[in-house]
């Protein structure tokens, strides 16, 4: 039986890297006594897939991982046992049973939703209420992306599914392409937005929270994005 686990990551533990979060959960699952499926061989490991790696320093309200269990009492019990085995800052908020034919968490990722704030004193001198409008009105948003094979021009525009500036709370709300082929980072969007004003971001200027990760249940042409956690059921 495949389970999809949704968790939050906040506070000091946001500095724990992606691989170490995986290691953390492997141990937490053992502590919680969950009847997880293991691979065969001399060093058996748990069958586990994460949706999308979260960068070091970012907080999240919507991380996902899939595991496979051989048996369980209920999804509620799995959630409770995991939280009991966890540390402050890593909190399981939902456990769902996945339909057998569901794609795994990693392959399913379509987009991700973020809240982005500037750290104190690091907000560029730009009127974002106006800048966001002008930015989205552009036909193409070309940035150069440095890859292993050299520099490559990329158009951000189709990957920005939502972009909004809340001037009262001084924060962005964005939904960006997070698929393996077209992943966009919030920092790339903001850098491209302020560039025409002759501004550049200071080091470590952004405070980013990932709010949710979505999958596409529509088609490529007519996408319908729903949270990864809505694929499964409680029982």
């Amino acid at each position, binding site marked *: 039986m495949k389970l999809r686990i949704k968790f939050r990551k906040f506070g000091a533990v946001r500095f724990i890297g992606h691989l170490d979060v995986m290691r953390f959960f492997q*141990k937490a699952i053992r502590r919680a006594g969950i009847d997880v499926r293991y691979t065969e061989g001399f060093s058996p490991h748990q069958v586990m897939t994460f949706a999308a790696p979260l960068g070091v320093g970012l907080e999240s309200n919507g991380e996902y991982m899939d595991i496979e269990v051989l048996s369980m009492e209920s999804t509620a019990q799995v959630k409770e046992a995991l939280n009991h085995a966890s540390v402050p800052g890593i909190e399981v908020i939902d456990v769902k049973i996945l339909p057998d034919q569901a794609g795994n968490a990693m392959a399913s990722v379509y987009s991700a939703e973020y809240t982005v704030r500037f750290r104190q004193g690091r907000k560029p001198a730009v009127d974002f209420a106006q800048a966001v409008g002008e930015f989205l009105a552009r036909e193409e948003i070309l940035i150069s992306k440095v890859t292993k094979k050299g520099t490559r021009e990329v158009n951000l525009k189709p990957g920005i599914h939502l972009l909004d500036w809340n001037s009262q709370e001084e924060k962005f709300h964005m939904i960006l392409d997070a698929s393996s082929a077209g992943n966009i980072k919030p920092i790339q969007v903001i850098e491209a937005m302020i560039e025409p004003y002759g501004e550049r971001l200071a080091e470590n200027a952004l405070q980013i929270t990932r709010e949710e990760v979505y999958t596409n249940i529509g088609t490529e042409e007519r996408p319908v994005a729903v949270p990864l956690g809505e694929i499964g059921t409680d029982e």
Partner: protein
Amino acid sequence: MERLALSDDILMKIEKPERYIGHEVNSVVKNKEDVKVRFVMCFPDVYEIGMSHLGIQILYDMFNSWEDVWCERVYSPWRDLDAVMRAEKIPLFALESQDPIREFDFLGITIQYEMCYTNILQILDLSGIPINASDRGEDCPIVIGGGPCTYNPEPIADFFDLFYIGEGETQYRRLLDLYEECKELRLGRKEFLRRAARIPGIYAPGFYEVIYHEDGTIKSFTPTEEGIPATIRKEIEMDVSDTYYPMKPVVPFIKVTQDRVVLEIQRGCIRGCRFCQAGQLYRPVRERDVETLKQWAIQMLQNTGHEEISLSSLSSSDYSKLPELINFLMEECKRKHTNISLPSLRIDAFSLDVMSKVQDVKKSSLTFAPEAGSQRLRNVINKGLTEEVILQGAALAFEGGWTRVKLYFMLGLPTETPEDIRGIAELANKIAATFFDTVPKEKRVNGKVQIVASTSFFVPKPFTPFQWASQCTKDEFVEKAYQTRAAISEQLNQKSIKYNWHEADASVLEGVLARGDRKLCEVIRRVYAEGSFFDAWSEYYDNERWLRVMEECGLSTEFYTHRERPLDEILPWDFIDCGVTKEFLKREWEKAQREETSANCKLKCQGCGAARFGGGICVEHQIQSAPLTTGGC
């Protein structure tokens, strides 16, 4: 608890910020208002090394089991963070509370190897604690050292208020009670140290005076006050089955060196190899009850979620209930999808059978530690491993499918000759030949055998029969490594043998510090002031600087290393009584020179002196000869 000592900007730009944020599973957070004593335990090396140390986990668990104490941890900030902390004047902090070390009552430092001495100064310096104990005021933490290097604490005596000689389980409660009492009565730091010096196992270096002869050797070592003991006897936990052991060890987020449950099955070693310090320091051998160990293993695996368990001891094959314990763990681990990591066991039918069950034979290798190349020299060092036993073990292993063998040797052992060195090459060659004799051509999976011979350079240590011995100079060491390499290249099966050897520079300095005296405190202060720390990391070790500073201080490496010490010389560590008598060590030193071996503790008592502790193997033999005494203690 969300407050971190380091800002986001710093944490985002340094390597592995997880080293500094605490929050690990099973780390202990208390309310500082609710405790009387705040203790911070330090391993003066990088987090991944320090977190792998069992001793700190045991003491951390013990301290935190006491309601009036909160024990936290601190490790050496890596070079990148060190630079930031100095530039931004950020005081060193404990992981759990993120509070400055300076605010604590005690800073306990475990000292596991000589090459970390400069890191101790880094810890003190970053904490804002004066490096010299004599400069510390009433508001400074009490700095206390423990661990194997404290059996010769003299080269670092200036930096510590106290040393705890021996196993921590026994006297810490008494020390903290005394501290609380002195604090309540406002007796002051000096009076607390004075009273602490009377607790068994506690050495307060400030109350002793050393006078030297003109040649630099010690003329006298005496307490400066009435009531301060002239000798300090090591502390030892005699009931190892009913004592502190962490059922909930701290589980780090990042991968550390020892990323597994560690089950310490016994303390001490029966073997009495003459080069080995641990084999003398931890006498007598005390085995833990096998049923207790089974319970502990289950609990620790449950509480940590680790995917591996490892047995720890100086010589696991000598544990009397080893087959029972391993069979139990194999069953348990199979059920829980956990791996067993086996320590170096003596290679025989039993251990090969176990290994073939828990490891992939094709990928694993076999380890032998003959330590010396010839039987003559193995007799000198009392390493009871014969060529016959090694070749039989190798043949068994080759039949079982193993094709990789690791061999460990030491170069520069007392009385070593060119023939002994050639013996290393010849033994490696014979093992290769055994492979070709044992495994028929059609069964050789990869067609060949791989033998890796490694040598390290011998460094004489205090409280061993070789404590008087001459250590080789750097040039002699290097010459011996060349001889070994040349001898291997002359062997018939040389293509199957790979040879590795260690750097010689650090071995010489390790020798200086291991058998050094208080005069070296000044050297350590100066090299640290010039920028040396993380000396255990070859990329940061500056040999030239150490040698130059030694010279500037009027000291020679020869004096500490190359000189053979006369038996009547006062050694810097003579004031410590480690249980084993100097008479015994002398006897062993003389037997070594006569190439005579000594039987192990199980076969025959050698009268080393450890029997006075009244337990362990020293009394088990009496139990065997007195059948009326029942065994189920």
